[in-house]
C-alpha cells in the first residue's frame, strides 16, 4: 500500500519542482497576502479616523482660546454719566449701558482720526458692530467700582464683537457677510486697518476658561468656567458615593457572598446595569430624584447621583478584578495567624488591591465626566451656567450645567461663533480626561504587582 502511494507521489502528480510554485500555491499565497492587507487596511482606517477626529478638534477648537480685543481710551464724560456732578453712586448706577455705548463708539472714532485711517464710516453708530454687546457693561462696571475716574480718560481693553473676532480668525469672510446685518464689508475693512494700527488685537482668552455662559447674542463672551465648576461638584458627589459603595459591594461579592440565588441575582443585575444605555439612567434620575423625591432640578447633586448609579457597575467590575488578583496565600496567611475573615480582608487584601481599585475608579470617573445624555434629562441645559454659585453648599444644589452639557448647548445654538466655543470646550474636556487616564496608567505602572 505505502509503496503504491509513494510511486505516484505528490511532486510527480503536480509535475514541478519544490522550488517553483504551482498555480494553486500562488493563489493561496496571494489570498494570504490579501487577507493580511485587509487587516492592515482595517487598522489604518481605525487610526485614520482617530487622526481625523483629533485634527478636527484641534483645528476647530484652538481658536476659542484666542480672543480679539479692542484697545481704546474712553473719555468718561461727566455730563453723560453723572449729570448732578455729586458723584453719588446711586445716581451713577441709574445710567444704563445705553448711556455708555456712545462714549465707547466716540472713542473708537477718535482712534480712527488719530491713526489717520481712511474709512467711509463716519458716524459713531457705525462703530457699534465692532464691539461686543458686553463692552458697555464692562465700562459701566468699571465706573461704578471707581466713580472718581469720571471725567478722566481711561484705557480699556474691551471685547470685540464675534463677527470681528471671526474675521480675524478666518471664520468670517467678506463673502459670508454680504447679507449679515451684524457687520458690513466696510466695517471689516476698518477692522483690518485697526488691526494694523494695533487698536484691535488678538490675545489669550482667559475668560473662556474661567467665564460663564452668555446669551445667544454674545458668543464672544461665553466661557466654560461655571460649567467646569458644575462638573467638579458632580464628580465630587460621584467620587464620595461610588468609591465606598463600589468597594463595599465588591468586597461582599468577592470575599463574603455565599453562592446562592440572592448573590446570583446581584451579579446578574450588575452585569446588566453596565450595559443599560446611559439615557435610561437619565430617565431614572428624572422619575426618581426629581419627580418622586422633589430634589432640585438642574442641580449638580442630582447629576452626581445619576452618574453614581451609572458608574457603580464599572467600579464594581474593576474592583472585583483587582480583589481577585490578590493571591489566596495572602488570605490564608492572615487567617493562619489568627485574623478573622474581616481582618484578613481589610488589613491585607484591600491595601494590596488598592492601586487597582483607584485605577478603576479614576477610569469610571473619566467616563462619568464625559457623559451627557442623562444630564440633559435632569435639566442641566439652557442658560443656567451664567452665574457662579454663591457658596460651596449652593454649588451642589444651585442650577448649573456641566462641561459636556454646555458643549451640547453651544452646538445647538444658531450662531456659528458658538461652534468654535463648543470645539474649545471639547479640548478642555479632553484635557481633563487625558489627565485622569494618564494618572490611572501611571498608578498602574507604579503599583501593579505580578504575583
Amino acid at each position, binding site marked *: 500500500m505505502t509503496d503504491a502511494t509513494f510511486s505516484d507521489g505528490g511532486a510527480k502528480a503536480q509535475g514541478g519542482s519544490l522550488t517553483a510554485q504551482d498555480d494553486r500555491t500562488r493563489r493561496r499565497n496571494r489570498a494570504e497576502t490579501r487577507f493580511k492587507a485587509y487587516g492592515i487596511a482595517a487598522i489604518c482606517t481605525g*487610526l485614520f479616523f482617530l487622526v481625523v*477626529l483629533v485634527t478636527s478638534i484641534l483645528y476647530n477648537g484652538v481658536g476659542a482660546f484666542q480672543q480679539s480685543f479692542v484697545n481704546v481710551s474712553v473719555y468718561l464724560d461727566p455730563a453723560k454719566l453723572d449729570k448732578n456732578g455729586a458723584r453719588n453712586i446711586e445716581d451713577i448706577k441709574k445710567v444704563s449701558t445705553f448711556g455708555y455705548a456712545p462714549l465707547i463708539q466716540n472713542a473708537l472714532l477718535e482712534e480712527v482720526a488719530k491713526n489717520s485711517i481712511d474709512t467711509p464710516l463716519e458716524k459713531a453708530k457705525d462703530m457699534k458692530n465692532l464691539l461686543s454687546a458686553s463692552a458697555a457693561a464692562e465700562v459701566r462696571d468699571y465706573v461704578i467700582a471707581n466713580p472718581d475716574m469720571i471725567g478722566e480718560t481711561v484705557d480699556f481693553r474691551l471685547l470685540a464683537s464675534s463677527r470681528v473676532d471671526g474675521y480675524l480668525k478666518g471664520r468670517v469672510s467678506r463673502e459670508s457677510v454680504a447679507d449679515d446685518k451684524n457687520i458690513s464689508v466696510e466695517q471689516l475693512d476698518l477692522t483690518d486697518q485697526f488691526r494694523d494700527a494695533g487698536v484691535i488685537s488678538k490675545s489669550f482668552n482667559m475668560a473662556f476658561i474661567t467665564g460663564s455662559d452668555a446669551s445667544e447674542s454674545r458668543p464672544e463672551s461665553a466661557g466654560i468656567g461655571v460649567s467646569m465648576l458644575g462638573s467638579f461638584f458632580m464628580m465630587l458627589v460621584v467620587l464620595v458615593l461610588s468609591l465606598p459603595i463600589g468597594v463595599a459591594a465588591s468586597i461582599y461579592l468577592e470575599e463574603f457572598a455565599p453562592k446562592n440565588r440572592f448573590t446570583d441575582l446581584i451579579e446578574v443585575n450588575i452585569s446588566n446595569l453596565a450595559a443599560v444605555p446611559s439615557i435610561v439612567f437619565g430617565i*431614572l434620575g428624572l422619575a426618581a430624584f426629581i419627580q418622586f423625591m422633589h430634589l432640585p432640578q438642574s442641580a449638580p447633586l442630582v447629576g452626581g447621583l445619576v452618574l453614581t448609579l451609572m458608574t457603580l457597575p464599572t467600579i464594581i467590575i474593576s474592583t472585583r478584578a483587582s480583589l481577585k488578583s490578590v493571591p489566596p496565600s495572602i488570605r490564608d496567611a492572615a487567617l493562619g495567624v489568627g485574623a478573622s475573615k474581616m481582618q484578613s480582608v481589610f488589613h491585607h487584601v484591600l491595601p494590596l488591591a488598592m492601586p487597582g481599585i483607584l485605577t478603576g475608579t479614576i477610569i469610571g470617573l473619566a467616563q462619568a465626566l464625559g457623559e451627557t445624555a442623562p444630564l440633559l434629562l435632569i435639566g442641566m441645559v439652557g442658560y443656567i451656567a451664567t452665574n457662579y454659585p454663591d457658596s460651596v453648599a449652593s454649588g451642589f444644589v444651585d442650577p448649573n450645567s456641566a462641561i459636556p452639557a454646555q458643549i451640547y448647548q453651544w452646538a445647538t445654538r444658531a450662531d456659528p461663533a458658538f461652534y468654535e466655543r463648543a470645539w474649545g470646550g471639547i479640548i478642555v474636556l479632553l484635557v481633563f480626561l487625558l489627565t485622569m487616564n494618564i494618572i490611572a496608567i501611571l498608578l498602574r505602572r507604579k503599583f501593579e504587582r505580578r504575583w
Partner: protein
Amino acid sequence: MPALWLVVIALALATLGFFLGRPRALATGGGDIRALHSRPAYYGWNVALSSLVPAMGVLLIWMLVQSFVVNSTVAADFPAQAVPEDQTLSLVMSDVGRVAAGIDLAVRRGVISETDAQNLQVGGSNIRDLLAQVGKPLASDVIEPVLTAAQEYRALASTGNTLRGVAVLGVALLGFGFAFLRTNSTFRARNVVESGIRTLLVLAACLAVLTTLGIVLSLVFNTIEFFKIYPASEFFLSLTWAPSFGGGSELGIAPLLWGTFYISIIALAVAVPIGLFSAIYLSEYATPKVRALAKPLIEVLAGIPTIVYGLFALLTVGPLLVSVFGDDGVGIMQAGTAVMTAGLVMGIMLIPFVSSLSDDIINAVPQAMRDGSFGLGATKSETIRQVILPAALPGIVGAILLAASRAIGETMIVVLGAGAAARLSLNPFDAMTTVTAKIVSQLTGDADFASPEALVAFALGMTLFVITLGLNVLALYIVRKYREQYE
C-alpha cells in the same frame, strides 16, 4: 438645621465615641489588654459606628421622604378651583416650590426678615420683585392660593427640618449611649463590629438590585400612565410620529424604531468589518511592537465621550457628506444631519468595542488548534478563516450583539447628527430620528409631565430598555450555549 451640619455633628460624635470607647474598655479590663475580649480599637469602633450609622440612615431616609410628604400635603390642601384653566396642579405646584424657595433665599440673604416673610401679602409688597432680586425670577405674578400654599410649604418644611435635626441627633446620641454603656471587658466588640460592617457591605451590594428596580418601576409606572391616556395599539402600530404640545398628537413608534435600526445597521456595517479585521491582524499577524502601539491607539476611540462624536458628526462629517452627496454633488442629500452621518460616526465609535472584544475571544482559542492547522499545511489566513473564526464565532456574534445594543442606546451622536424629522424612508441621506433622540426632545422642553407628549418618553424608554436588555441577554446566551469547551 442644615443637613450638612447634622452630618458634621454626627461625625464629631462618632470620633468622640471612638476615643471614649477605647479607654473605657481598657479601664474595665483593669488596664490589661489581655483581659479584653477584642482588641481595644474595636470597642472604639463599636461606639463610633453605633452612633454614626443609624443616624446617617435616619437622615438619608428622612431626606428622601420629607420633600415627598411636604409636596403631597401641600398639593392635597391646594383648592382645586384655584388651579388656572390652562395649567395643571403639577405646574402650579412647581410654582409653589419656586416661590417658597425664593422666599427662603430672600430670608437667608437678609433681604427681608423672617416675620416679614411670613406676613407677605399678594397685594402689598411685590413678591415678584423680591424674588427677582435674589435671582429667582417668576414668569407671572403670584396669585393668592399659590402664596398661601408656598407659606404652608415653608412652614411644613421648616417643621420637618427641625424634627429631622431632633431625630437624627437623638438617634446618634441613643446609639452612642447604648454602645458606650455596653462597653466592658467581656463585651464581644469585634463580633458586633464585624457583623455591622458585613451588613453595610450587603446593603452596598443590594444597591445594584435597587437601581434596576428603580429603573423598572419608574419606566413601568409612567408607561402605564401613558397608556391610560393614549392607546397602546396606536403607539405600537401607527406609522406617524407627530407630537404637538397643543394636543391631538400622533405618537407612533414605528418611524423612530426604523431610524434607530437603520442607523445601527450602518454603524455596524462600518464597525464590524474594521473592528474584526483589526482584531484578527492584531492577534494573529502583528509583531508585539505593532500590537503594543496600535491596540491602545484604537482603544482611545472608545475613551472619547459621545458628545465629541456628536459634534464631529454635526460639524465635520455632515458638511463633508453634503459637499459630496448634496445639491452640488450627487444631489440626494438635503442637510448635514442624516442617517448616514450618524451611522458613520457611530461606526467609528464602535470600532474599538468590536475589536477589543473580538481580540479577547480570538486570543482565547487555544494555540494547539492553530498548530494542528499549520501542521496540516494550511496557510495563516486559511487557519484563521477555517479554524479560528469558526471556533470563535459564538463569542464574535456575542460581541456584535453587544455592539448593536450600544448602537441602539447611543444618544448624543443621533441627537446632534441624525436630524429631528421622524420619517420612514429608505434613503440613507435623509434626516431621520431615533428612539433616544426623541426621549431627549420630549423630556427637555417645558412640557407638563402629565401630558401624553412627555409621558411618551417613558414608553420609548421602556421599549429601549427591553430591546437592549434582550440583546444583552441573547448575547450572553449565545456565548454560553455555543462556546467550545477546550479543556
